């Protein structure tokens, strides 16, 4: 080995001879390639690329060379070291990949193990159905209005053109609240409909009024598969200048399309409600059988009882008497109102066969509905 500062001819420096450098290079590359593990590669690296490796030693010799020879020698060593370094990195990557693959295999688990530690919750489908309907109307610019469930008779009946002797009062079997003296003459009832919220809204604010009123209502029915004494309605009310039956139809059509889907026929049946005139019942073409079960005993339809139509709810143009009782000028304003029964919509939209399931609070019924419907 040459000592520094000695004057000599570079070509005579053994370690810097091209064939020697090339050999050291090739040996290093071969050693790396032969390393079968990261440990072996580490040893090979020390031997062939460490501080005491032939190439490192050769590199040191460069400093002692006369200036004119340094460049050539530097280039020679530099190229060799570059090649070795590249080979080392390549092999390092290969071996690491192999190791990682092996470790990952060893760490594999059965991901099909059931993991249901976080308890699942859900909101009641009637709640989320009401919200969906609210949202549809809020998007149109409506507001959501609410009112009390224990309500003044005047607001539940009288203000809605249902006078004390109106036959329609017996249509709705009403829960009456006891008066302070225990009699029935409290003037207070469990509301039989969400319509008193309409009246409250009109009494409360100046037109234009565009509101939807979701809520629980009460009638003295016994609970069975298709009736419940406590049920939910969503009421809608629009009072503005120039509101017509046509506006009502357009609005309901939008609601149905958002709620159920498009392409279904609606049937508008004249009906009677004291608070609207004209009044209509809205029937939706059965979206299961599309009417094909009618008169066809071979294809009965459970959803519409083979009637071909599903009752959605009642609606109409607000009776001017209602406007008067609520302080709205019927010569300037007109309105429409509608009321939908949520239980029935839920039954139809989600194939619920028995209304009792909506009442009893069995978590198995509610869970599949999740957070929204």
């Amino acid at each position, binding site marked *: 080995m040459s000592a520094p500062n000695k004057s000599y001819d570079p070509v005579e420096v053994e370690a810097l001879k091209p064939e020697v450098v090339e050999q050291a290079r090739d040996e290093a590359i071969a050693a790396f390639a032969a390393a079968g593990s990261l440990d072996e590669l580490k040893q090979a690296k020390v031997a062939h690329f460490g501080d005491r490796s032939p190439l490192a030693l050769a590199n040191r010799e460069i400093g002692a060379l006369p200036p004119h020879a340094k460049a050539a020698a530097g280039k020679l060593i530099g190229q060799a070291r570059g090649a070795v370094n590249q080979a080392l990195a390549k092999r390092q990557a290969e071996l690491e990949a192999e190791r990682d693959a092996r470790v990952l295999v060893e760490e594999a688990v059965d991901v099909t193990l059931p993991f249901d*530690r976080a308890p699942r*919750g859900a*909101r009641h489908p009637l709640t989320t159905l009401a919200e969906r309907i609210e949202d549809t109307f809020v998007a149109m610019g409506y507001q959501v209005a609410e009112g009390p469930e224990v309500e003044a008779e005047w607001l539940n009946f009288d*203000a809605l053109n249902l006078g004390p002797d109106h036959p329609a009062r017996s249509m709705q079997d009403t829960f009456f*609240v006891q008066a302070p003296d225990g009699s029935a003459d409290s003037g207070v009832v469990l509301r039989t409909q969400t319509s008193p919220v309409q009246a409250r809204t009109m009494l409360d604010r100046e037109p234009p009024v565009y509101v939807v009123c979701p809520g629980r209502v009460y009638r003295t029915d016994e609970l069975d598969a298709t009736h419940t004494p406590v049920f939910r309605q969503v009421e809608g009310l629009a009072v503005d200048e120039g509101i017509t039956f046509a506006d009502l139809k357009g609005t309901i059509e939008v609601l149905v399309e958002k709620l159920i889907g498009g392409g279904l026929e609606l049937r508008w049946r004249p009906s009677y409600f004291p608070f609207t*005139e004209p009044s209509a019942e809205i029937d939706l073409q059965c979206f299961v059988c599309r009417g094909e079960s009618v008169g066809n005993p071979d294809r009965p339809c459970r959803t519409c009882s083979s009637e071909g139509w599903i009752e959605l709810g009642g609606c109409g143009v607000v009776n001017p008497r209602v406007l008067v009782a609520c302080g709205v000028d019927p010569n300037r304003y*007109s309105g429409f109102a509608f009321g939908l029964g949520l239980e029935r919509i839920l039954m139809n939209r989600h194939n619920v066969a028995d209304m009792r399931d909506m009442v009893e*609070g069995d978590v*198995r019924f509610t*869970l599949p509905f999740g957070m929204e419907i």
Partner: protein
Amino acid sequence: MRVPLSWLREYVDLPAGETGRDVAERLVRAGLEVETVEQIGTDLKGPLVVGEVLSIEELSGFKKPIRHCFVNVGDANGTGEPQEIVCGATNFQVGDKVVVVLPGAVLPGPFPIAARKTYGHTSAGMICSARELGMGDDHAGIIVLPPEYEPGTDAIELLQLVDEVLDIAVTPDRGYCLSLRGVAREAAAAYGLPLADPALLDVPPANSFGYLVKVTDPAGCDRFVARTVIGVDPNAKSPIWLQRRLQKAGIRPISLTVDITNYVMLEVGQPLHAYDKQRVDGPITVRRAQEGETLTTLDGVERKLAAEDLLICDNSGPIGLAGVMGGASTEILDPAAGPGTTEVIIEAAHFDAVSVARTAKRHKLPSEASKRFERGVDPEAARAAAQRAVDLLVLIAGGTAEAGVTDIAAPHPVRTITISADLPDRVAGTAYGRETVTRRLQEIGCSVAGADVLEVTPPTWRPDLTDPYDLAEEVIRLEGYDNVPARMPNVPPGKGLTEAQRVHRRLGVALAGAGYVEVNNYPFLGEAAFEALGLEPEDRRRRTVKLVNPLNDEEPSLRTTLLPGLLGALRRNIGRGNTDLAIFETGTVFLPKDERTVAPRPAVDHRPSDEELAELDAALPDQPRRVAVALAGERLPSGWWGKGDQASWADAIEAARTVARAAGVELTVRQGQLAPWHPGRCAELVVTGTDRVVGHAGELHPRVVKALGLPARTAAMELDIDLLTADGAERVNGPAVSGFPVATQDVALIVDTAVPAAEVEDALRSGAGELLEAIRLFDVFTGEQVGEGKKSLAYALRFRAADRTLTADEASAAREAAVAEAVARTGAVLRGA
């Protein structure tokens, strides 16, 4: 109203191929609610024929009388030989005409008929009862036909066994559709066909020698027509066609005279009453009842009359509740029980709708008559209806119409409605034009005059048409709702949901996200619920709003707490095998005001005053919105990952925090005591920074758990959402996040068991000062090492400064200040010190 299609066709010449369903569809679109179209006799198959009983042999030795008969069925059996039939009925004799079903036929059921051996003889067919033929419930015996029918005649046709019946739910505004006449009018309009009005009869004018009637209350009774028929054959039976029509319409045939009055009522819509003339004592008077009067009605019930009841009376006193039900004393007599009625007074009157409705309601006596009067009867139909009944009594019962015609009529003002011809256009939002409006109004029986402004006189059978909008509705419905265009109103920009509505949604989402399932319970409860909860007698929650007519007498009250319903749902679920449960409910409770008042009933012809509206609200109970949860079983399930966690008091409190967080409100928890919670495991929930208690949470009292049959350690929470959110949520200011490193220090303090952890934490927090970023209790320990009556609370404190890296000394100083405050406030001792 049940309308047989075959009967309807008598007044409207409907197209021959039109089925009941087709007609129903048209009527539905015109506004009649056809609920069902009943198919009668579709599964019936002949041969079903008239037979003549030739011989009867009574068989003995059986448990019941059995007859072995030979019946002449003409050529219907193919041989003309007498048909051998064994029969269990005994209400016929030799020579009677009966209805025979022959082998090969199928009776409703379906019940196929074949010859078979029975009681030692061959029975080749059956002699039929009404019920076997689907004609009604009468199973008293077999049908004995009038003698005039030939043996072998097809009885399916004869008995009109195949038909369709439209069952129509008549809305209160359409009283006139409680008759064939009214339904036929709608059908005629729907098909554009002429109507053969059954009330268009020749009626002799009123005269002075009719039965004497005095009306003292013309407001209650503005029309009273009386006719008399004598020489009625009491034994005359209702002909088959009459019986069949009544049966199909849902009315049981009783006797000829009564059947005729019912028939005419169904046909014309005018309720009639028939009196046995010989049992009526003197002139008839129509008047209000006097206090203390009684009347035994046709149903045999003696009724105490109220002064408002309108009565039909004779010299003996009341003989009928006007428009509701007749009295027993003048009832038509059945010849089976003595001499039958031979002289009849027919009453066709018009009574005030409200008066009839109140009387029917007062006596809980809804009748076919009252149903019609309440909804409005055509006062002009009275004469025709009486005439029709007289004609039928003469024709069928062999009676003689007396010449006297009583007709008392209070003057009727002509009701004219002024309507702008374009009102229907403006209501519907489409253009019908004046001609269409006029034509449609005429179609329903109105007379119309005028051009741009119409003077409309509605027909007498439409008392519901009182204002221009009523008329507009008629035009729009007859033109078809389907033909009204659809349009969207121009809604002004909306404001979206209110903050309260958003909070309400958020807390539902938050609880569901935390694993709670929402339930909705009825708000009804009774004393038993409060007992089970262990409420003290003076507990405010026992003061309830009560119902006059609860569904269940045991549960007359409205809830003052959500817990009974929620715990009931919990138990129901457990009973069904769902053991690990977390459920929630939101809803109103009903809290009576201290001052209870009666709600006024302001007039409806103008807006009530603000005072009146305030009085309305004052009469209502407070109805705050609550949220409650209940938990039982495992909150976090055990599994292959290890042990789970039992639901506990702490979960209930966490649920309250979940709700509060969703509402943007901070809750402070204090030790509380309230039924139905465990006295040592009850948290009082207070809005932080206030003294406002908004609810409670914790484990239920063991006694309550036992009383309700719930699992041990069942936990619950209930809080008032309105109280919780009373201040509204504060707007959050974005925190300045420090980039400097954190310094963590732990501290363990020993305090008396009774010291609430929340107080220790509060003290540490305030002692530590601004540098404290977070504090977390990571261990609670009791045991020998800390001494009896003591507990050790271990906290991790995280310190950080906004502007520099804290030195160890700074962090330690802050920690020491925190400990010093805890020592001072709670008597804590630093553990290991």
